[in-house]
């Protein structure tokens, strides 16, 4: 009998994936933990209490983050899906696709620095709308390209089929295209939600700290000296998406992977 190594590797992978989450929670509970100690001398909720006391309005930030990210995810997924169809069925598909790559080519931070001027001019500075628009500009090409693989010959055939059966555009979408793309749409929604949720540079420039997303609130701590607070901030950042993912998984995984 050959030794089956797969379960071991698999368990290792699971451990590796879970380790960061556990370690970050642990680090956020620790204090006074220095080389060469393997175990911190303090474990408890001190850091959490301090941060929640000093950061007024964390909850409010959480909700404005949620509103912004959901709007961005909804807008970019919807428009990405609809517009990608026009793009990937277009005879000049190659050129258009190439154009869609360009926003990626300009590094995001630089993109942000250069865009701020136009946002200022349009009065989209320092308010929620501006932040949503700015994040949308980043998330849209992603969504667009995300759906590129969906529009293939086969799907075209399904569309044609609906057409010859007498279905109009609306019916084609609701009865065939959306159900077929459901898995992809959910993933794209999740991804664009994350893009928005984690967005810092652009949000801080366009929102100039007036639009206080959770990410803006906690980002400084990650970079600043106290890494126990940093770990805590990391937890605040990553656990909401994990929860979202958990609730989403029923829908996402059935169709997908």
């Amino acid at each position, binding site marked *: 009998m050959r030794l089956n190594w797969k379960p071991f590797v698999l368990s290792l992978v699971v451990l590796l994936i879970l380790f960061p989450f556990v370690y970050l929670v642990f680090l956020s509970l620790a204090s006074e933990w220095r080389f060469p100690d393997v175990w911190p001398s303090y474990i408890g909720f001190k850091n959490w209490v301090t941060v929640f006391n000093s950061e007024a309005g964390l909850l409010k930030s959480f909700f404005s983050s949620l509103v912004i990210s959901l709007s961005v995810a909804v807008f970019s997924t919807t428009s990405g899906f609809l517009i990608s169809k026009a793009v990937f069925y277009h005879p000049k598909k190659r050129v258009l696709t190439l154009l869609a790559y360009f926003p990626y080519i300009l590094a995001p931070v630089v993109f942000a620095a250069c865009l701020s001027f136009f946002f200022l001019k349009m009065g989209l500075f320092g308010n929620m709308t501006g932040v949503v628009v700015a994040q949308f500009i980043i998330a849209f090409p992603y969504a667009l390209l995300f759906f590129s693989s969906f529009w293939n010959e086969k799907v075209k055939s*399904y569309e*044609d*089929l609906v*057409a010859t059966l*007498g*279905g109009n555009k609306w*019916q084609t979408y609701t009865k*065939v295209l959306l159900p077929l793309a459901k898995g992809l749409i959910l993933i794209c929604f999740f991804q664009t939600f994350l893009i928005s949720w984690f967005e810092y540079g652009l949000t801080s420039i366009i929102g100039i700290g007036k639009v206080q997303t959770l990410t803006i609130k906690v980002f400084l701590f990650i970079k600043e000296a106290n890494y126990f607070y940093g770990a805590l901030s990391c937890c605040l950042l990553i656990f909401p998406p994990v929860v979202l993912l958990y609730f989403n998984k029923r829908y996402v995984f059935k169709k997908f992977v």
Partner: protein
Amino acid sequence: MFLEVQHIVKSFGDEKVVKDLNFSLSAKHTLSILGKSGCGKTTMLKTIGGLVPPDSGKILLNGEDITETKPEKRSIVYLYQEDLLFPHLNAFENIAFGLRLKKIPEGLIKEKVEHMLHSLELEGQADKMPTQLSGGQRQRVSFGRAISTNPSLLLLDEPFGSLDTGTRKRMQELFKKLTEEFDITSLFVTHDLKEAVLMGNQIGFMQDGVLKVYEDKKDFIQDPQTGVQSEIEFWGGLL
């Protein structure tokens, strides 16, 4: 004439697949179409159905020029050669699809589809998803879906290719019955000589991108090119 096809030309790259297609068809008639594999039959049907734009030429339906009309406005149903079922719907829902588009009341749909499933000999298969059906079952579902909408013009691309002789016969009868009942005009592409003879009011033979329609079935049977003669010989020889 119900359907008039005039000077249709279609090329893929350098390859002229359909060259100067010309024919017409009266209402409620069925035109069987035979032709070598790759001769352009599918391309022709897709052009008439509006799924492939012709390079030039004109298509008239009921006297109206529909060359530029969108496929969903043509009230022509094209039945794909490969059994293209909606992967997210089961057999029942695939057949019900066209009916649902028309917003027919639920009860009626249920009744119609169940009747159709029965006619297609698919009782007990209603809940299966496309991948769980056999090749011939898929083909029948796809046929049932096309015909249950009672289109004015039906384009069939080898609808019974994967069926055994017995089932095929019964499906042919079903088709005859339904076309008569609902006044359906149709183009029927097949590779089966017998089927062509049985189904068509007229028979056409496609070659080199041109469709030749026989005035009379007799002419068709006598034409040695069509292979009917050798078929007669073969079966006679088995006696």
